[in-house]
């Protein structure tokens, strides 16, 4: 592991300044794509992929260590994360030979993928999705609408979940299908969020036709095809836990450096956040240790997700409170935008209500409603 991280440090020490010199404005889309290509050439963004696909065949623990080092260098996140982390593993596992050709193109940004899952009528209850794909000869004809599609505006391809058997039970009769974004009948519109950002899109399908060969995995098995690879993300919450703990440490350090002391009540509130984040960090560390021991994480990821989302939201509210008038006048714009953005913490990737249902139903075995 140490040799690996030393290699990574050497790589970043060389490549990051070179990239920074080339792109004075690192926020440019082209700059970010260029950084992703650099990371892919070094086989660092794709380190968990098997070697035959251009990866290093590493495990979760190594990947987390890699991400830690990357975070320390303060380099940008790669923009094609969803393709690299979610889509490519699915294609490697379930894709046809033709489909697997996308894997290398995902790494080097020749292709940019999004996932078409949520719908206006299927948010928390994802499996109730209604976008239809009807087989007509050797083509799927797709009609419907997707929403909250991350990076929808920048994508070349979508991994679509559509209903192919309307008579089957809710979780059955769904298929995963490759849809090039430039297919006629497909329209992408950005969704503007309350913080002014627009990382998500709505996608409309009107008689969109793609070959039946674009099916990923078996027909009507799209739910399992997709959920299997979603599992890859699970370990990520442990990393989130550690990062939130660090964030709260940094916040407290900033507060202690202020000239005017904060109210004892806020001080206590910060200590409360600190206690919860320390405990969350311990849970995260123990979950990672389990993964390192080769034990599959169980209910921990749900608990960490629940605690993380509520605590991180509270912390942004506290920061806003600390900013006082500067928060509402925009003189402390970080507090303001952090506060607004944090409203999604208890909604995105499963609302807190849903996470509590999952713990109640699956972990505690309580009767379903």
């Amino acid at each position, binding site marked *: 592991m140490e040799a690996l991280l030393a290699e990574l440090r050497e790589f970043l020490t060389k490549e990051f300044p070179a990239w920074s010199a080339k792109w004075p404005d690192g926020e440019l889309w082209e700059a970010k794509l260029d950084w992703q290509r650099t990371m892919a050439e070094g086989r660092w963004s794709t380190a968990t992929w098997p070697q035959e696909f251009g990866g290093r065949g590493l495990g979760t623990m190594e990947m987390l260590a890699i991400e830690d080092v990357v975070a320390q260098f303060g380099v940008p996140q790669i923009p094609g994360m969803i393709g690299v982390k979610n889509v490519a593993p699915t294609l490697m596992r379930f894709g046809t030979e033709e489909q697997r050709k996308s894997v290398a193109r995902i790494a080097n940004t020749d292709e940019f993928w999004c996932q078409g899952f949520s719908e206006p009528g299927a948010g928390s209850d994802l499996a109730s999705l209604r976008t239809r794909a009807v087989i007509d000869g050797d083509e799927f004809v797709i009609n419907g609408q997707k929403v909250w599609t991350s990076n929808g505006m920048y994508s070349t391809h979508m991994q679509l979940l559509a209903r192919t058997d309307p008579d089957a039970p809710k979780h059955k009769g769904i298929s995963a299908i490759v849809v090039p974004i430039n297919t006629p009948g497909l329209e992408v519109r950005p969704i503007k969020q*309350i913080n002014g950002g627009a990382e998500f899109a709505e996608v409309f399908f009107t008689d969109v036709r793609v070959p039946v060969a674009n099916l990923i995995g078996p027909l009507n098995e799209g739910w399992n095809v997709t959920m299997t690879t979603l599992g890859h993300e699970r370990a990520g919450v442990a990393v989130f836990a550690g990062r939130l703990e660090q964030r709260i440490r940094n916040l407290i350090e900033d507060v202690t450096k202020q000239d005017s002391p904060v109210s004892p009540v806020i001080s206590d509130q910060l200590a409360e956040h600190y206690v919860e984040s320390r405990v969350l960090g311990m849970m995260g560390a123990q979950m990672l240790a389990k993964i390192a021991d080769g034990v599959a994480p169980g209910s921990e990821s749900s608990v960490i997700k629940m605690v993380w989302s509520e605590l991180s939201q509270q912390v942004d509210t506290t920061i806003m409170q600390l900013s006082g*008038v500067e928060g*509402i006048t*925009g003189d402390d714009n970080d507090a303001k935008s952090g506060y607004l953005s944090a409203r999604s913490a208890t909604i995105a990737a499963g609302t807190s209500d849903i996470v509590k249902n999952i713990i109640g139903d699956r972990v505690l075995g309580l009767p379903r409603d």
Partner: protein
Amino acid sequence: MNISTTTSSERADFRASLRNFFEDISPESRVREVIASGSGLDETVWRGLATDLGVSGLLIPEEFGGQGMSMAEMAIALEEASRAIAVVPLLATSVLAPLAIQLAGDTAANAELLPVLADGSEIMTVAFLDGAGVGTVARDENGWSIYGSKTAVLNANVANRLLVIATTPTGTGLFLVDAKASGVVVTPQNSLDLTRPTSLVTFEGAAATRIGAEYSEASQVLNAFGRIAVSAEMLGMSEKLMEVSVEYAKTRVQFGKPIGAFQAIKHRCSEMFAHVESMRAAVEAASLVDPSDKAVLHEQALVVKAYSARFAPWIAEATIQVHGGIGFTWEHCAHLYLRRVKTDEILFGDALACRFQLQQLLGLSA
């Protein structure tokens, strides 16, 4: 102040006419247009409030062209205007400005300034919050001059004249400054609230007219009225958000039933209702206090603000939670309210600050 109070049934009629007015001419689509225009003022609504409904003059005695009413009526106007998140300087120009002037007890100033406020012909605002690390001082240099800066000055971008609370050599004074005067710079801020732009106003020896004499006690009373006023605003917005949430909970179906059938959502809505009813009781009680009883006014204003500033933001946040992803979009109304509620939360002291003052009243704090 020469005020009279209407009966509760008259107030109900007044509320109904205001509700109709805002629904007609200030629907959300109109609010979004005005926001997008960047003007920070819906002229049509403002004219209507002044001329058709007499709201601008509610707190101004009849002898100066106003209605001579109390906070009980103004609270209703604030509730309804905020329910509609109307883009008008109601709080600054029709509540704070006339009260600030009248609290100074300066006959000449009353005669000069109240009539143009009553008929809505002039927009004034009160600058009461010192800029970060900078006080605002008034010096008598052959006539008064103001130095320093004020932050979060409501609607300063559309105001003709500013009422500035500044430190004098002997205490505190209220000063009138022309917004276009030399030495006055109004810099719009990147305000959280999109319906009520704030500005940083800097004064570099701006010429000012003093209104009345020592103002420190008046300033405390103005703060109390301010607390009641923003609480009324938060009440109006909270009620609207509760209704929007309940409506959504009745119609949005997930897992085969309307989400309002799930206890997590149902109980959140019930808690919203309890907080709205509580705020309503508190705003009503506080707005009916006899303003000459300053100790009671001060205490009630702190109580209603401490309550509203704690729970109205919770309601706005819970509205987004009830709506899920759609509540997080720019197109949904929730964030427009959240932004204005959070601003009201901070103005005149947040819940913690109000509780701290209450501790002092209760003898709990050293």
